[in-house]
């Protein structure tokens, strides 16, 4: 009986009834109000920690606020930005940006593949005690980074352990952190040391989610180990882990702790020249703020870094989406 009645009321009327249903309306209003109450803390937090600072930072970036204009500062238009982007005044922006991008790509890709390689290596079912190795290898991730990086800084000193080992073999000490090549080498290595367990763990989790049937089917077809990796494991892992790589790009781009605590951005060419060979945008900005105390310029750098970070997120999201569809 009832299903026939459905035909009597057409969709339009039904919508109208729903729209004017006082009970439903009241429910919706009540829920929206409740949602607002539940969301107030988040909204306050985001306003205080993100919205106000961002707007304020943009405003300061157009002023000459700094050590010389501490109590009264004026709007100077785009002067800070012109100073950053000008090519003829030896602006450190472009060299620093170049290294930041290299650092971001090499850091992320190396960490990702190193983690993947180790996850696959320690997934060997014949290695009965593999869980022990895996738990041990998590230690670098479990250590608080802020302390672990300083540990490395100490070990890379001229009298540090790596030089002691070299000396044992009769090789002269190398001042690791005073050479452009070696300091860049070590920031990447230390970063890999700190981050590979994360990638290893997520890759390991992703490996377990690949159905065995795929490998069995490949076995029947007579596929070799490498072929199976290239055609099954690798694409499927990329597909699962792609979203995590996006966040990793954005994170490495702004990985202040590692650069600042390991090399302090150095080595630097000369005193008063505040960009060093390993300085990334964030650590360089920090140094302008602390050493030069040119707050307006710092804020302008902040705005640029901010825009670049969004840019990186957008680009990697799109390219990884493309990557996902390809496989």
């Amino acid at each position, binding site marked *: 009986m009832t299903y026939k009645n459905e035909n009597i009321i057409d969709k339009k009327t039904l919508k109208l009834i729903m729209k004017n249903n006082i009970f439903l309306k009241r429910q919706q209003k009540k*829920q929206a109000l*409740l*949602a607002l109450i539940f969301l107030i803390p*988040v909204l306050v937090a985001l306003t205080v920690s993100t919205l106000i600072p961002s707007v304020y930072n943009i405003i300061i970036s157009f002023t000459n606020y700094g050590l010389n204009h501490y109590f009264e500062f004026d709007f100077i238009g785009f002067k800070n930005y012109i100073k950053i982007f000008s090519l003829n005044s030896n602006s450190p922006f472009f060299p620093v940006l170049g290294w930041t991008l290299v650092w971001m790509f090499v850091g992320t890709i190396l960490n990702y593949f190193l983690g993947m390689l180790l996850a696959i290596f320690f997934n060997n079912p014949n290695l009965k005690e593999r869980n022990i190795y895996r738990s041990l290898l998590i230690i670098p991730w479990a250590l608080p980074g*802020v*302390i*672990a990086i300083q540990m490395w800084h100490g070990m890379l000193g001229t009298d540090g*352990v790596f030089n002691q080992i070299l000396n044992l073999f009769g090789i002269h000490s190398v001042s690791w952190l005073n050479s452009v090549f070696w300091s860049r080498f070590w920031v990447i290595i230390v970063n890999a040391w700190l981050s590979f367990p994360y990638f290893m763990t997520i890759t390991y989790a992703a490996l377990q989610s690949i159905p065995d049937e795929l490998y069995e089917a490949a076995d029947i077809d007579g596929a070799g180990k490498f072929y199976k990796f290239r055609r099954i494991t690798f694409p499927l892992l990329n597909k699962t882990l792609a979203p995590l790589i996006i966040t990793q790009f954005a994170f490495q781009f702004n990985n202040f702790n590692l650069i600042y605590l390991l090399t302090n951005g150095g080595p630097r060419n000369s005193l008063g020249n505040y960009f060093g060979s390993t300085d990334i945008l964030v650590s360089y900005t920090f140094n302008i703020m602390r050493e030069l105390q040119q707050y307006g310029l710092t804020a302008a750098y902040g705005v640029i870094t*901010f825009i670049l970070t969004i840019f990186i*997120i957008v680009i990697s999201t799109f390219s990884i989406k493309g990557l996902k569809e390809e496989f």
Partner: protein
Amino acid sequence: MTVRKNKRIWPVRILAIMIVLIILFPFYYVLLTSFKAGSSFYTGSIFPTSFTLENYISLLKETSFMTWVKNSTILGIFASLIATTITMFGGFAFSRLRFPGKKYGILVLMILQMFPTSVAMVAYFKMLQLTGLLNTLTGLILLLGFGNAAFGTWIMRNYLNSIPKELDEAAFIDGASYWKTFWKILFPLMTPILATQFILTFIGVYNEYMFSVLLLFDPSKYPVGVGIKGFLSSNYSTNWTIFCASAILGSVPIMVIFLLLQKHITNGLTKGAVKS
């Protein structure tokens, strides 16, 4: 057959052990150095020669290490409490309630969670200066507690979405209000993610360096990470063993907590990211 397999696994096993040893060497070395007598910095021994607790004793007695630990604990606990509470309510609203603009809200959260807070350092400095919170732990607690709101809400929402809606709908039909449903039904189910969120924020705050060093000038207010840097920069060679002791004492508790909760932490992190 099994014998042949065993033989073939040995090279793999040796390689595995070597990888583990190489990767753990820095940690082992620092641990070892922390038990060495003060002057043995220059003797390049990789194996233990002497054992002394001297470094730990002088670290606890002669330096402000315990003050820094206290500061880190205060910062971590309060910032985590703020972050967990805020994101718990926010996550509930985004997962269970209907309100206008919810779709865009989720999108905004997703974008906001990737924003680097570090770029606005001048603004934070000025804001705390204006409110009189510069050089106070309170200012830093508010900053760090609020700073992670978007990411936390996002994680909470994803976790709540994995709890079947029928549970709270049943309670709602039985006449319980949303408020009651939240506390009686969902809150108990949320304990794992709440704990994860708390620990993650705590570790995040513990690892924070930039704002701590920028917004606190008073060495007696430093957290551990900032405080121990002094051992490395001043009188480097004589303080190296003390630094190692502080590094071990400062990192082992965090390490133990992390290793114990590692499964929850990875779950929370990957759920947040993969599910999109």
